[in-house]
C-alpha cells in the first residue's frame, strides 16, 4: 500500500477526482455559459489582444480608469440596472486626448451593444463596424464615469470583450474551455469506471460459471466470447449509439457488453486451475454447494487479479467513449472531452487557428489513460508474486 | 588438455535488499581433462559442477566474478575475447547440456542445427553438410532420418543423442557433458553412457561427464573428481576413491551407497 502513495498516478488521480467533484466551483459561471467572444485566446497567449473584462459603475463607485495597452476590444456592451432612473445623468466615456462621448442616460433597462446601429448613430459614428474601435482609438488612459453629482441607486455594467479569456481560452460558442475541461473529467471518469466495473462483473460471473461448471455452459460461453471478439468494437458502438440512443448510460451498457470477454477468459482459466485444488475437492466432498464454493473461496482468489485487470481496462473504456463522442455519436448536452474535440473539428477551430481548443481535451484523455495504466501496472506487480507464491493452501 | 587452475566463480546475485550475500559457487578448483580420457565430475546438486562446465567455454552469465585460469594449448580461455572464443567453441570444445535444457531452437529442425555449425565452423556447403548428417547421427546411435524432425518431435532419449551428434559435428577434441542421462530410463541411460565411452576409446576424445549419480560416474570414468560446496573434495582413480576415500564427506557418501547396495 505504501508503494501506492509513491506513485505519481495515484496523486494525479486524486487531483482529477477532486476536480471532477468540486472543480466547477472554481468558476463563476456554468460550463455551458457563454463568457467571452468565440475563439478567445488564453490570457497568457497573446498579450497584445485585450482581455475580456467586466466593469461596474454604481452610485458609490461612479468612475473608473483604464490603462489600455491593447488594440480595440472585439465587442462593447453596456447595461444599466436601476429602479430609479436619472435621465439627466449620463455614462461618459473619455478617450486619451480628452474627447468625451455620452454613451447613454441612466434610464431603466438600457442595454447597449457596440454593434447597434442606433447606438452608433447616437455617437456620431458610421453605421458599419463595431463602435468599440471608435471608442478605443489608441493606447492610453481611458475614463468612464457617471456625469453629474449626487446619490444614485443602481449599477452600470460594462462588458469589453477582447480576444483573450481565462486559462484556456474559449470555444466556438464563447464557453470557457477550462470550465469545460473540468466538467469533462466527470464523464470520462464515470464512463471509464462504470463501464469497466460492469464489464468486470459480467466477465467474472461468466468466467466463473464457464470454468467451474464446464461442459455445455463452458462451450456456450466461450462461443459467445469468440463471437463478440469477432465484432469490431467501434463500428458496433457506432451502430448501436446511432440506432438506440446517444445517452450516457446506454453507452456504458453497450461498452460493458463488448468488453467483458477478456476478463471472462482470465477468470475461467484461473477457475480451471483452482477448481482441482485439493481443498476445493474436500469441500465438494463435504457437500458444500457450488454457490458457496464460488462465493467464499474461488471468488476471493480471483479478486487481486481482477482489480489489476479492471484498472487496466478503464483506459479502453475512456478511449471508446472519447472516440464515439468525437464522431458525434454522443449526447450533445453532455460535456465530454471527445465531444470538445468533435466541436473543435466541426465548428471551425482550424480556420480560427484555435489550437487551445484541441490540446486540453486531448491531453486530458491521454493523461487519464496513463494514470490508469500506471496504477494497473502497480497492481499487477503486487498481484503477481502473491499468485505465484500461492494463496491456495 | 584442458587445464583448470584455481577456478573460483561467484555469481553476481542481487537480493531484494540490494546488497546481499554472494556465495561462491566454485572455490579454488583445479583439475585437468585429457584427451582419450573419460573424466567424471560428481557431487550433490548445487555443488557447483555445472558452473565448472559452463566456465570452460565462457558461458557464464555476464556479471559473474571469475578468477583463476583455464588453459587450452597454453591460452587462458577466461581471458580470450569473444571472437577468438567462438573459434574454439564447438571446434575444440563442445558441450552436451542437461537433458532438461532446451538445447535446440524449437522452430528449426535438428538437422538444420547441424548444418549450421558445419557451415559456420567448417565452411561446408549445404550438400556437403547434408552428407555428413547420417554418419554423424549414427555415431550417436540415431537414425539419420530423424534429422528432419523438429526438437519437440523427438523423445527424451532421442533428443539427448541428437545433442551428442550435434556436439560431435565439428569433431571437437573435448566433449563436456552435463548430466546427459538424467530423466531418462535406465536402459537409455546405459546406452548413452556406452556411446560416450566408445567415443573416448575409439576417437580419442577428452570427455568430462558431470553427474550427481556417484556410482554411475565411478563405474565408467577413468578419473573421478568430487565436488562438495564448490570445493574439490576428492580426485583420482575411481576404484581407489571408492575403496579408500580420503575426505570424510566422501567416506560417508561411499558408506551410504554401500549400505544401499547391500540392501537394508
Amino acid at each position, binding site marked *: 500500500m505504501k508503494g501506492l502513495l509513491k506513485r505519481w498516478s495515484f496523486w494525479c488521480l486524486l487531483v482529477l477526482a477532486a476536480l471532477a467533484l468540486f472543480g466547477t466551483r472554481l468558476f463563476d459561471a456554468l460550463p455551458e455559459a457563454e463568457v467571452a467572444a468565440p475563439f478567445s485566446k488564453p490570457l497568457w497567449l497573446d498579450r497584445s489582444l485585450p482581455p475580456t473584462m467586466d466593469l461596474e459603475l454604481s452610485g458609490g463607485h461612479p468612475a473608473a480608469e483604464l490603462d489600455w495597452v491593447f488594440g480595440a476590444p472585439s465587442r462593447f456592451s453596456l447595461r444599466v440596472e436601476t429602479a430609479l432612473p436619472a435621465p439627466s445623468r449620463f455614462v461618459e466615456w473619455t478617450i486619451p486626448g480628452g474627447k468625451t462621448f455620452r454613451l447613454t442616460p441612466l434610464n431603466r433597462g438600457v442595454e447597449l451593444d457596440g454593434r447597434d446601429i442606433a447606438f452608433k448613430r447616437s455617437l456620431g459614428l458610421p453605421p458599419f463596424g463595431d463602435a468599440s474601435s471608435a471608442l478605443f482609438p489608441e493606447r492610453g488612459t481611458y475614463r468612464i464615469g457617471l456625469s453629474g453629482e449626487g446619490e444614485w441607486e443602481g449599477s452600470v455594467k460594462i462588458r469589453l470583450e477582447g480576444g483573450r479569456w481565462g486559462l484556456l481560452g474559449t470555444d466556438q460558442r464563447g464557453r470557457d474551455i477550462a470550465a469545460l475541461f473540468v466538467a469533462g473529467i466527470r464523464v470520462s471518469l464515470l464512463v471509464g469506471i462504470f463501464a469497466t466495473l460492469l464489464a468486470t462483473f459480467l466477465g467474472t460471473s461468466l468466467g466463473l460459471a464457464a470454468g467451474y461448471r464446464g461442459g455445455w455452459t463452458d462451450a456456450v460461453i466461450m462461443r459467445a466470447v469468440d463471437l463478440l471478439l469477432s465484432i*469490431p468494437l467501434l463500428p458496433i458502438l457506432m451502430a448501436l449509439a446511432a440506432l438506440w440512443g446517444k445517452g450516457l448510460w446506454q453507452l456504458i451498457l453497450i461498452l460493458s457488453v463488448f468488453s467483458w470477454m477478456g476478463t471472462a477468459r482470465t477468470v475461467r482459466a484461473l477457475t480451471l486451475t483452482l477448481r482441482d485444488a485439493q481443498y476445493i475437492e474436500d469441500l465438494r466432498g463435504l457437500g458444500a454447494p457450488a454457490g458457496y464454493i464460488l462465493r467464499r473461496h474461488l471468488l476471493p482468489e480471483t479478486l487481486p487479479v481482477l482489480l489489476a485487470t479492471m484498472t487496466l481496462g478503464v*483506459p479502453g473504456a475512456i478511449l471508446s467513449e472519447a472516440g464515439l463522442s468525437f464522431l458525434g455519436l454522443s449526447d450533445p448536452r453532455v460535456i465530454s472531452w471527445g465531444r470538445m474535440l468533435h466541436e473543435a473539428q466541426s465548428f471551425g477551430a482550424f480556420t480560427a487557428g484555435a489550437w487551445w481548443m484541441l490540446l486540453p481535451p486531448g491531453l486530458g484523455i491521454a493523461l487519464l489513460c496513463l494514470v490508469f495504466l500506471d496504477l494497473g501496472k502497480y497492481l499487477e506487480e503486487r498481484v503477481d508474486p502473491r499468485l505465484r507464491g500461492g494463496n491456495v493452501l | 588438455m584442458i587445464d583448470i587452475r584455481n577456478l573460483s566463480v561467484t555469481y553476481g546475485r542481487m537480493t531484494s535488499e540490494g546488497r546481499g550475500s554472494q556465495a561462491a559457487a566454485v572455490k579454488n578448483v583445479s583439475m585437468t581433462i585429457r584427451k582419450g580420457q573419460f573424466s567424471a565430475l560428481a557431487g550433490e546438486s548445487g555443488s557447483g559442477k555445472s558452473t565448472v562446465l559452463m566456465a570452460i567455454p565462457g558461458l557464464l552469465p555476464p556479471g559473474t566474478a571469475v578468477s583463476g585460469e583455464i588453459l587450452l594449448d597454453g591460452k587462458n580461455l577466461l581471458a580470450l575475447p569473444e571472437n577468438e572464443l567462438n573459434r574454439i567453441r564447438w571446434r575444440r570444445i563442445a558441450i552436451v547440456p542437461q537433458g532438461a535444457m532446451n538445447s535446440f531452437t524449437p522452430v528449426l529442425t535438428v538437422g538444420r542445427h547441424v548444418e549450421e555449425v558445419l557451415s559456420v565452423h567448417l565452411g561446408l556447403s549445404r550438400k556437403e553438410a547434408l552428407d555428413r548428417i547420417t554418419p554423424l547421427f549414427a555415431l550417436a546411435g540415431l537414425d539419420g532420418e530423424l534429422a528432419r524432425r523438429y526438437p519437440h518431435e523427438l523423445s527424451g532419449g532421442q533428443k539427448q543423442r541428437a545433442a551428442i551428434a550435434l556436439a560431435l559435428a565439428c569433431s571437437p577434441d573435448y566433449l563436456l557433458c552435463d548430466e546427459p542421462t538424467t530423466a531418462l530410463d535406465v536402459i537409455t541411460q546405459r546406452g548413452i553412457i556406452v556411446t560416450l565411452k566408445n567415443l573416448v576409446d575409439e576417437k580419442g576424445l577428452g570427455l568430462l561427464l558431470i553427474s550427481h549419480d556417484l556410482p554411475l560416474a565411478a563405474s565408467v570414468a577413468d578419473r573421478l573428481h568430487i565436488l562438495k560446496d564448490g570445493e574439490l573434495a576428492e580426485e583420482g582413480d575411481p576404484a581407489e576413491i571408492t575403496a579408500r576415500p580420503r575426505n570424510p564427506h566422501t567416506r560417508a557418501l561411499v558408506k551410504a551407497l554401500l549400505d544401499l547396495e547391500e540392501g537394508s
Partner: protein
Amino acid sequence: MSGYWARRTGSALLVLGLVLVLNFVLFRMMPGDPVASIIDPNFSPEAKARLSEVYGLDRPLPVQFLRYVRSTLTFDFGISFLTGRPVVEELKSRLPNTVMLLGTSLVLSSLIGTWLGMKAALKRGSLLEKCVLWSGALSFSFPSFFVQLVLLMAFAAALPLFPLRGTLSVPPPAGGLPLLLDYLWHMALPVFSLVLLGFGGWALYVRNLMVKILGEDFILLARARGLPERNIILGHAFRTLLPPLLTIFLLSLPGIVSGAVITETVFSLHGVGRFLLEAVTGHDYPAAGASFFLLALLTVSCNLLSDLLYGLTDPRVRMERGGGR
C-alpha cells in the same frame, strides 16, 4: 492437420452466421417502422408498398432472414438512402482507399516497430529501450483523433504543407504521375499519423518478446556453439519471434478498422470508414448494414487467417493440433 483447419474454419463460419443474424436484427428491427430500415422513408406510400412486395417485407421473418442472407452473400446490399446509388458501388469506390490507408500504415508501423523493438531488446538499459518502454503506453493513451487533429493543425493549417482534407484535390490533376503524386500528397499525413500511433505498441511487444527469447536456454546454447551474434539474433531469436509476430500482425487488422473510421473522418478521406459513419448518422440502413457486415467479415477472416498461419509457422502447433486429436 486437416482436422485443425476444419475446426477453425467451421468456427469462423459459425461466427459469421451469428454476425449475419446480429446484422439482421440490428438493422431491420429498429424502434419504429421496420419498413423504414430498408425502404427510404421519404418515398411515397405507393412506392413503399410496391417496394415492400419486391423486398418481401410482407413475408414472415424467417423468410425475410433467408432473403437477407442470400442477398448479403451475393453482395447485393440494396440502395443507399443518402446517395441513391447501389451500396455495392459506393463500397467499391471506397474500399481501395481504405485498404491502401490501413495496409500501408500497418506494414510500416509493424516494420519500424519490430526493428526498434529488437534493437531495444539487444541494448538493454539504453535510452532507446527506455523510449520503447514508454512508447507503448503513450501510443495507447493518446487518442488517435487527437494526434491527427494536432498534426493537421500544425502541418496543414498553420504551415500549409499538406492538404486539409480529401483523398484527391478538387479537381484532381490529369495524367498518371501527377494524379499519383496528388494522391500520395493527400495520404501522407493520414498514413504518417497512423504509423506514429502504431509503431509504439509493436516496439514494446517485440521488445518484451525478444527479451524473453534471449533469456531462453537454446539461445545460450547457440552461443555455446560458437555461432556469430548475427546468426543467433536473426537465425534463432528472430526466427522464434516470427510465429507470434505474424499472429499479432493479422490479429491487429480488425482493430485498425476502427482506426480507419476515425482517420477518414479527421482527414475527410473517401473510404469505407467514413461511409459507415455517414450511413449510421444519416440512418442510411442499407449502407450501414453493408459496411458493418463487411467489417465483421474482415475481422472474422483475419482471425481465421492468423490462426491458420500460426499453425504453419510454428511447427510445435502444427503437430499438437493436427495429429492424433
